[in-house]
């Protein structure tokens, strides 16, 4: 009796939650994906693929399936997972033409999967071949999609994975590419998407420069980071403070130190370091500072 009742209730729940369109199914799949319910997400992406009516919908379901393989297993992604992800990206790319806005996304993702696959490859020759394929895709991105968000994403991927040794030539090259990208941007105007990941590029270059002992570049790129727009309030506070400290203690740039101590005090007033910032600004500039007005 109880079993029947509970089964009926379960049936109600199931029928109530059934999705009836691609949008609903894809939304549920991404939701499960974001909850790290990879098996469920995979199943739902497959279902969504069957319901897809357009090329874009088909691509979305394919991207979901590939992401489950490439990112979903987090620390346990196998060579086979990457291989399968690459073939899914190929399937998606075969649906897209050159003008399609999703093409750079799939090119970038495929390149990333190939790069990871190359790292897992036991043979040097195979590894180099896979890396060469990835480089080929990145070249397409560089040549054909200069300011695209997915090219920006791929530039960061290349810098992050070039080498764990920040002094290594590959790492220096990859970070130089980030500098080149940022150098060509208008910090204030210009298309918003062109600058979408510029602040991250700047913070990465700053970190890379700092660990290589280049304090002038660290300050320069942290400043650029602040101009492009920090990703959160705590990150902004952190950048202001580091600029001021490095300028004061390493590059002996008193003007920059005072400016950023002041900004820290006025914009990050609730922060535990704000009084210190005020004191340092006053000592370095010889001027009294009024009360901070920001957070």
């Amino acid at each position: 009796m109880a079993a029947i009742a509970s089964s009926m209730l379960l049936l109600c729940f199931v029928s109530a939650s059934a999705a009836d369109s691609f949008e609903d199914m894809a939304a549920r799949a991404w939701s499960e994906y974001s909850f790290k319910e990879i098996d469920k997400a995979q199943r739902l992406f497959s279902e969504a693929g069957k319901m897809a009516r357009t090329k874009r919908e088909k691509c979305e379901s394919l991207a979901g399936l590939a992401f489950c393989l490439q990112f979903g297993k987090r620390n346990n992604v196998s060579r086979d997972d990457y291989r399968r992800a690459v073939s899914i990206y190929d399937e998606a790319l075969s649906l897209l033409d050159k003008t399609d806005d999703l093409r750079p996304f799939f090119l970038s993702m495929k390149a990333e999967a190939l790069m990871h696959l190359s790292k897992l490859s036991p043979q040097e020759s195979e590894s180099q071949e896979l890396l060469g394929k990835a480089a080929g895709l990145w070249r397409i991105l560089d040549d054909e999609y200069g300011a695209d968000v997915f090219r920006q994403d791929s530039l960061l991927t290349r810098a992050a994975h070039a080498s764990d040794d920040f002094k290594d030539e590959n790492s220096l090259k990859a970070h130089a590419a980030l500098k080149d990208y940022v150098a060509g941007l208008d910090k204030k105007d210009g298309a918003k998407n062109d600058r979408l990941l510029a602040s991250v590029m700047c913070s990465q270059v700053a970190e890379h420069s700092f660990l290589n002992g280049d304090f002038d570049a660290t300050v320069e790129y942290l400043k650029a980071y602040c101009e492009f727009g920090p990703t959160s309030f705590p990150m902004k506070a952190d950048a202001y403070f580091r600029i001021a400290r490095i300028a004061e203690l390493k590059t002996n740039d008193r003007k920059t130190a005072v400016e950023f101590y002041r900004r820290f005090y006025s914009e990050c007033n609730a922060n535990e370091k704000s009084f210190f910032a005020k004191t340092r600004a006053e000592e370095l500039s010889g001027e009294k500072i009024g009360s901070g007005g920001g957070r």
Partner: protein
Amino acid sequence: MKRKQNIESRISVFNLVGLAILAFCYIGALYNVYRIKGSGVVGGKKIIRLAHWQLELGIRDAISELARDFEAQNPGVEIVQIPITERAYAQWVTTQLIGRTAPDLIELGMFNIVDYCGRYFMPLGEVLRKPNPYNADNPELKNVPWMDTFSDGLSGTYIPELLDYYGVGFSRFTIRLFYNKDLVAKAAGSDRPPRTLDELFAVCQKVREYSDARNAEIRKFNEEQAGKDGAMSKYLPFLRSPRKSPFVLDPIASSRYQVSLFRPRYSSMLTAGRVLELDRNFDGITSFDELVLALLEGDVKYQDEHNVASLELMKEFSKYFNPGFMSIDRMDAGFAFVQGKAAMITSGSWDASSFIKKINDQPAGDAVLEVDGAAASTSRDVAEAFAKAAEGGRKVELLIERDGARHRVKISPRKAATLWESAGIELADISDGGGAARPVVVDVDELSPAHAAGVRKRMRFDVGIFDFPLPKGHPVFGKYFVGNVKEMSGTGFSFGVVKFSDNPGLALKFLQFATTVRNNERLNERAQWIPSVKGAKPIKMLEPFEPNEEGCWGWLNFVQSGGRTAMVEGQLYWPFISGETSTEEYLRKLDEQLPEATATDYDNYVTNYIEKTPDKNYLRSIWLAKFAFARDDAARREASLKLPAAWENYLLFKNAYPKHLVNMGPLIEARPDTAFSRDFFKTYDAFATKRKE
């Protein structure tokens, strides 16, 4: 045979009845869960449930009052408050969230915020970046993003791992010292709060001396009483002359909890300068890896004079704590203070109203209205009447008032110089509730004629609140003093909106309603906490809790929270602070045991970053996909905000290993010739070998 069949048939019927009851209850329970879960509507009303663990006095009333106002403006809505005890809170919330029966609003805390918020709570960043609609009639705030109307911009509720804000805080909290003004005045001669560390220790010393003097009197009395005992009283205790109980009064009520408040505060005042010196990446914080590098390179030692000074200072404090403070809990320490068994205690503004209410709920003491039929208006009148009666060898009749009722008591005073020696009572002229002052019994000797006559003393007392006195100018600690501690005025008592709430819009609306200047001020006035919204004023009693805006931050802490170093140091610190081991002994043991633990924690520190990196990349993948397949402008906008933040978070983890190579690489090669380095690398190398295998 037939009888056996009858019995079996009855058992079978009983079984069926039992099964039917079970099934009925089960279906009822399922229906109930479904009903609550299904719509959030009960009895035609939309129910918003709100869970928290704040059982302190006034909080529930404050929320109820706010809820009633909200309901009045929103007919058909009911706010139901679910207060849960602190001990069961995490478990209860977990069960409710997993079972999807959780309330709409949950106070954030006690559980793993990062994990739970990511899974079960709504990100609030987007709505927090827009003005609070309830501020529409406030010219100063109507165009200000909701998050910027809070004193800290809600920066404390931003979760970097999740790239968003998840809570809205109602109050702010700071920590202060509470003191029993009456006791301090009696022991130290003035109820003025100590302003310097020297003054604080002087007050503690005087309280200790006062307590010792009282106990010396008691011991002397008890010895005299023992002298009066006959031979038989040794075998028959009821024949013994009465003895007095020891007088319990400690300068500072404490427990591990209180030590955890004192230690960082005073350590920061003495060691914050070293934190800045050891900070390598110039972010103003000495992270664990930076500390390890400093230890390896010999830039800092456990014997660092600032560290030693801060240890000695805490040891000095612990001399004035109650015996066995390490084994009692926070509540017991609070009771000791409230009951007048300690002159001071440290705690946060969250305890202020509870302490004061509990103290004021205690007996006010017998007020003497008449002595032998004549009105007594001052303590002196009473003392004189007692002196005369003692001289004449007669009894004194008092008319006393206790809890509104009047009683008459007769006391036979002894001839003595003071009222205490004559009748065993101490009086003070006290005005309760703003009326005229009158003589009130503030102390009664437990073996006195007054006690025998049923006179009862005052248990309530005046409470003072003061900031941690500074070691500035202290003969020992003064030279290490860096400055007061800048207090983060971060918001607490924060609520998150549960993702699967049936009425998330209404839940959010309630949070917006609660955080206008007026409502936040009213809520906190009732709760007796500090408001979190800019412009909302705290009540007068809480003014001493206003955060210090000037000062330093951070302290020289040699342990990694939750790690092996924390465990080892904890095992050594408590015997040290309780006086079982000396400072030298404690430092020697740190030298012996902490390098190995530090190596373990450092290895875990780096490994943890490496292992979590794919997880951060996973987070990036979510926003990358949301950006690529956004269905509308709002979704694209959100992804545009989150994708860079996800990248930055990912790189923070991805860069940890290169950072390790840059910083630690040369040291792994060079092996600095220090005892710390030798012990550290012994363990570190073992991990490295194990990893290679």
